[in-house]
């Protein structure tokens, strides 16, 4: 019991520390470009936190999460620009709608396992992307929503610049982490992890594995949808291109790089990959002048392979282990291991 309490306190301390960092950063970073990168990192973090619940804890893969991200963005975009619905209400509608869609689609899809499940979610992502491209009347087709999407606001506070949006996004990202943390340390979280550990044994203990997989799939879709809404109100213009297969793969890479079974992994993974992608945009043309956008997928592939070989538990776990062995050596300076 004492150890449990200590663990809980450690978790709370980490959250507090992280909150302080979040609030300090925008006062240190004054460059608008850097701030906008941080906003995107925050938005992606929300998606990847949900994806980690699905992949890291329940052990189920999704290669179609950009579709849910897109559903959220488009629900917000269309409802607010075409139908003048309040942005917050539109965000909620997107979240609920996407959750329901994910649950219903999940019923047939989650009869599959592993590679087959990966392929099915891939197909799902492609289908939703095609709908965004082809339903021209509703979505504006490949050229995107023509009408402007309004900024989010609370009372007279309008989130119309990077500085303000940074706080909004990161408070929500923090909330996403805290709520996911709650799930992980709950009856449902244990059930999900037990599915990952041994689905056979989980069922023998009365865990309705099918239902729990669907629930976490829907929950992770809701996370993606909220992030999509935030994206739409940040950029204020959306087209189908950021919601395709490439983005889905990017989310998976971010989750794997950060470490799947860690609720802090997403922040690290998203940061590393986003900063690297931005860096590549800068340096790749200098290195190979004729390189197009395709190099990105090559780089993601290489990262994924390297991480899987050298740190299969992801960056977070590797760092934690390094810290623990450092502390171990510090406490016992005379021993050599």
């Amino acid at each position, binding site marked *: 019991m004492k*150890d*449990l309490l200590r663990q809980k306190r450690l978790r709370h301390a980490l959250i507090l520390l992280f909150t302080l960092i979040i609030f300090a950063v925008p006062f240190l970073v004054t460059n608008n470009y850097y701030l906008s990168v941080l906003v995107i990192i925050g938005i992606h973090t929300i998606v990847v936190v949900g994806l980690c619940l699905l992949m890291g804890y329940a052990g189920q893969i999704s290669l179609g999460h950009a579709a849910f991200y897109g559903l959220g963005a488009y629900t917000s975009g269309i409802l607010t620009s075409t139908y003048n619905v309040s942005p917050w209400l539109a965000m909620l509608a997107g979240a609920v709608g996407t959750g329901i869609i994910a649950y219903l689609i999940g019923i047939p899809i989650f009869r599959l396992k592993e590679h087959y499940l990966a392929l099915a979610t891939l197909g799902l992502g492609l289908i939703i992307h095609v709908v965004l491209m082809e339903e021209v009347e509703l979505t504006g087709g490949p050229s995107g929503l023509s009408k402007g999407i309004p900024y989010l606001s609370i009372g007279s506070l309008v989130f119309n610049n990077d500085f303000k949006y940074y706080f909004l996004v990161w408070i929500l990202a923090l909330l996403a982490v805290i*709520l996911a943390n709650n*799930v992980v340390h*709950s*009856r449902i979280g244990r059930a999900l*992890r037990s599915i990952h550990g041994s689905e056979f044994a989980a*069922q023998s*203990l009365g865990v309705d594995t099918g239902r729990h997989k669907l629930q976490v799939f829907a929950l992770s879709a809701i996370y993606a949808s909220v992030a999509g809404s935030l994206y739409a109100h940040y950029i204020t213009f959306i087209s189908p291109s950021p919601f395709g297969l490439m983005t889905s793969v990017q989310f998976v890479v971010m989750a794997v790089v950060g470490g799947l079974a860690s609720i802090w992994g997403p922040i690290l993974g998203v940061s590393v990959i986003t900063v690297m992608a931005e860096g590549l945009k800068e340096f790749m043309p200098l290195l190979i002048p004729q390189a197009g956008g395709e190099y990105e997928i090559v780089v993601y592939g290489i990262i994924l392979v390297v991480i899987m070989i050298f740190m299969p538990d992801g960056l977070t776990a590797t760092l934690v282990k390094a810290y623990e062995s450092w502390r171990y050596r510090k406490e016992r300076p005379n021993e050599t291991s």
Partner: protein
Amino acid sequence: MKLLEVTELTKSFGGVHAVSNISFSVSAGEIVAVIGPNGAGKTTLFNLMTGVYPPTHGHIYFKGTDITSLPTHKVAALGIARTFQNLQIFNNMTVLENVMVGRHIRSRTGLLGAVFPLWPVQSEESKIVESSLEKLALTGLADKAMEPAGSLPYGQQKMLEIARAIALEPELLLLDEPAAGLNSSETRELVDIIYTLRDQGITIILVEHDMETVMEITDRLVVLNFGNKLAEGTPYEIQNNQEVITAYLGEEGF
């Protein structure tokens, strides 16, 4: 009324009858062993009883309810728990968390409660911890609670499976080769635990190869051979059954 009643149970995989026309019943409070040479269909029988796959023919009744072809998690919810011949520990969790999963059907927190854990959820959570620690104490693992389950030695992992299964508060506990791989002192400990569980009112069916232990602790035995029921009776009857001796030792005997 019998606690468990198996009638004319048959399971074929392709053309092979893994279990063929087996009937037997178990009363509340009994310790019954299912024995037989390798490949006799013992584990298949356990898998049928826990709904891992449906039988080709026949029925299984638990407390008078037909549980044939019920999915595994519903069988568990009715109060049948089991352990596995090949360990199925949740290696990604601590010892305590493994047992806490065993409390799944005895607690109710849903997804919403998991996301927003208000005090009813928290008080349920501490009850789960409390009763899980009790089960760990019973199986001698109390001081290992916070360790990663995968780091336990083999014998303790087997005990952990038992702790996890009884956390479910089953009426019927199925133990698949609980003594396999245990040394003699661990086997002794296992026997004590089985008696404790019986005294708590849990009915136990076990598959086991360690004949000395089986003959000592069971009230009754069911002997399988090539998927068929060869014999049924008390340890004394089985030990003196000519057919059983032949199946185990061959035609010549001693």
